[in-house]
């Protein structure tokens, strides 16, 4: 489990581990079924060690990890803000980007449509670079074939971003 995803899910308010799991399951649907129940807790423990989250209180004693309420530290908030602002490709992968939009909207950290726009600009630049390189290759060169694969993947991702934009602008206007 990507640490930043778990961090961002805490950005709105301190939460129990099981609440984080439920949110991830909602966001990922059947794709989240593969998620191991322990994964969120392992990630939370790592984040706690790294000083990015802090345990606020334990209701029923210190050994019941599912009773702990986790909150972001100042460093954790900083890390979430950086993650939201990051653009790139091939990472973030689909699930990470999807969760970024959900977390950003939920906690009011950023407008999902702004995130989509920034990602699109980044992908278009890469598409331009890949295409320039492809146009400079002789027909049927090995490199041209690889570049075609990159171009097709970027196109597919751009189409999905269109779908993201559509969905998030509907959610916004529906509010």
């Amino acid at each position, binding site marked *: 489990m990507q640490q930043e995803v778990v961090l961002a899910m805490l950005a709105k308010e301190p939460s129990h581990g099981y609440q984080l799991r439920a949110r991830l399951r909602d966001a990922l649907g059947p794709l989240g079924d593969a998620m191991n129940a322990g994964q969120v807790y392992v990630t939370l423990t790592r984040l706690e060690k790294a000083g990015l989250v802090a345990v606020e209180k334990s209701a029923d004693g210190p050994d019941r990890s599912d009773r702990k309420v986790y909150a972001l530290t100042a460093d954790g908030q900083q890390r979430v803000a950086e993650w939201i602002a990051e653009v*790139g*490709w*091939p*990472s973030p992968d689909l699930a990470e980007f999807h969760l970024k939009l959900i977390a950003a909207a939920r906690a009011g950290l950023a407008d999902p449509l702004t995130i989509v*726009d920034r990602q*699109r*600009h980044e*992908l*278009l*630049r*890469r*598409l*331009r*670079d*890949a*295409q320039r*390189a*492809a*146009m400079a290759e002789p*027909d049927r060169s090995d490199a041209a074939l690889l570049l*075609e694969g*990159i*171009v*097709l993947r*970027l*196109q597919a991702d*751009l*189409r999905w971003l*269109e779908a993201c934009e*559509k969905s998030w*602008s509907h959610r916004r206007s529906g509010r």
Partner: protein
Amino acid sequence: MNNVLRARGLRKEYGTGESLVRAVDGVDLDVAAGETVAVMGPSGCGKSTLLHLLGGLDRPSAGEVSLRGRRVDGIGERALARMRRTDVGFVFQSFHLMEELTAVENVELSALLAGRSPRAARRRAEQLLEQVGLADRARFLPSALSGGQRQRVAVARALSNEPSVVLADEPTGNLDSAATLDVLRLFEGLHESGQTLVIVTHDARIAATADRMISMRDGAFVDETRLSGGVSGRLGALLGLED
């Protein structure tokens, strides 16, 4: 005035009352000489209608269009037709070639209609076919050409009267990947030679070759990116080989 094309408050409405549709809803656009602008958006966002308004194929419900500093939205039919013939080059998704004319005859036709001598028109058409890499196909009928070749003939035709601006509507919409690359190469060449280009498309590959990319949704511009400049050249990033 170095803007070749300028639009202000452009609107196009269809229907009335309840069924009123605003296909283009308040668009402002400036296209500088030599610039390539891509307007991107899903089908039905109004981008084709916008292109028709810019090229005088259709008249706006409201707003202004100027070509090289001259208002064209209110001019008469004859003046508009002349403007379309001499000042604007069109490229369409489905090529719109005359099936019974050869490639070179298709290309020279618009020069003939604009009043050039047959000899000058033929010479120009042959030059243009050479420029688009089809000199050896000049005597072929469109039916004997591939989709990519037909589109290159259509681009040559669009250039025949040295238009101020070339307007292209989904020029790669009917083309496979290799033919798309040929058309993109051609547009890059036009861009380098200083041709002003406005392309509406939902093909991100074309948009990525533009200087500027404008996103259109529900008849209006919603986002704009300048893509040119800032040579990245970081091809390693494409594969995640660096970070």
